[in-house]
């Protein structure tokens, strides 16, 4: 039994099955991220204050460029298949995979950076805000040793912590607070506020897509490539279809970067 149009395009529609399949899947992805973006708009419009400048723009830019490069190498890998140059395919696909992994590493670093970033409410009404100096320190440890040391600053007004872009030359120092003075202590996890909730959810879901895409790309680069010998046309189609997914993931990031990092 042979399913028609797995390789050749059907004459009246002009496309092969998998291409239609991936576009349908991407349509559903548009709706998925559409739902999340509508949540973003709604929660942002309804928010009393919205943080600015909480994420590192250089790192975000780096990741944007990395994804752009990977999108291009994906296309070139497909082009290499189309013109029958398998050596080039292997090279460009390896580049894509490398970019994907670099992206994930940068993302991990950024997550970690938020994870060790604490806002501490002190008994005198001020706020200490900054990164933990001892890597493994947490509140429980602080209670034992008696102090918490942050690399950051102390502010009198919590709203100062929101718009970091409006403030020029923020001074960061080692700040040590006594455990006894701490009213509450919370790191910049998704529970911290709506902005971070959106940040972790949106980028987390996006990172899952990157991970899924990397697995597919890795499979096609590794064990999957033996299909090139038996059925090069179908293999080229697979590269095109996986490439379409990869470009979509890039497309999502093109919107995630400005809405989370820049605005």
């Amino acid at each position, binding site marked *: 039994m042979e399913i028609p149009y797995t390789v050749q395009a059907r004459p009246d529609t002009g496309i092969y099955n998998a291409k239609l399949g991936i576009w349908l899947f991407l349509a559903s992805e*548009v709706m998925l991220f*559409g739902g999340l973006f509508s949540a973003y708009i709604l929660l942002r419009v309804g928010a009393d204050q919205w943080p600015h400048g909480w994420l590192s723009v250089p790192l975000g830019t780096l990741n944007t460029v990395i994804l752009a490069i990977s999108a*291009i190498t994906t296309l070139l890998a497909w082009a290499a298949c189309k013109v029958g140059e398998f050596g080039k395919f292997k090279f460009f696909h390896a580049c894509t995979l490398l970019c994907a992994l670099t992206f994930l590493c940068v993302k991990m670093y950024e997550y970690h950076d938020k994870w060790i970033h604490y806002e501490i409410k002190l008994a005198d009404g001020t706020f200490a805000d900054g990164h933990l100096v001892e890597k493994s320190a947490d509140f429980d440890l602080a209670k034992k040793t008696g102090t918490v040391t942050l690399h950051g600053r102390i502010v009198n007004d919590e709203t100062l912590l929101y718009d970091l872009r409006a403030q020029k030359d923020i001074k960061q120092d080692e700040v040590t607070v006594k455990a006894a003075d701490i009213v509450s202590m919370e790191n910049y996890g998704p529970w911290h506020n709506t902005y971070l909730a959106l940040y972790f959810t949106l980028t987390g879901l996006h990172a899952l897509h990157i991970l899924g895409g990397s697995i597919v790309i890795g499979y096609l680069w590794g064990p999957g490539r033996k299909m090139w010998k038996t059925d090069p046309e179908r293999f080229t189609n697979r590269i095109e279809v996986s490439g379409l997914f990869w470009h979509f993931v890039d497309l999502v990031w093109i919107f995630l970067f400005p809405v989370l990092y820049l*605005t």
Partner: protein
Amino acid sequence: MSDSHPVNFNSYLRRCLYVFIVVVCAVGLMIGASYLPNYQWPTKVAIILAIASCNAFVVAGFLMHLISEKKMIYTVLGFTVFFVAGLFVLTIYAMHDFPAGTQMH
């Protein structure tokens, strides 16, 4: 569909370079726009999203070769975009349409 695309590898490479330059420029512009003084955030967000949309158009159009796709795919995406727009607009409108006399706290 292969006839609508160049068969020469270098022409792909050239196209990719153009797209990459556009993407990098767009990213630069967005970052620049976000630091514009004298503008309120809503204006800046609008400018930045406009640039991002152009960027997305280039990526979708040339890397996903959407500018020369088949009618079937346009149809599917057309409906999708319409429904996403409906979801955005109606939800946000519904949340900001209050019965007359509603008092806000």
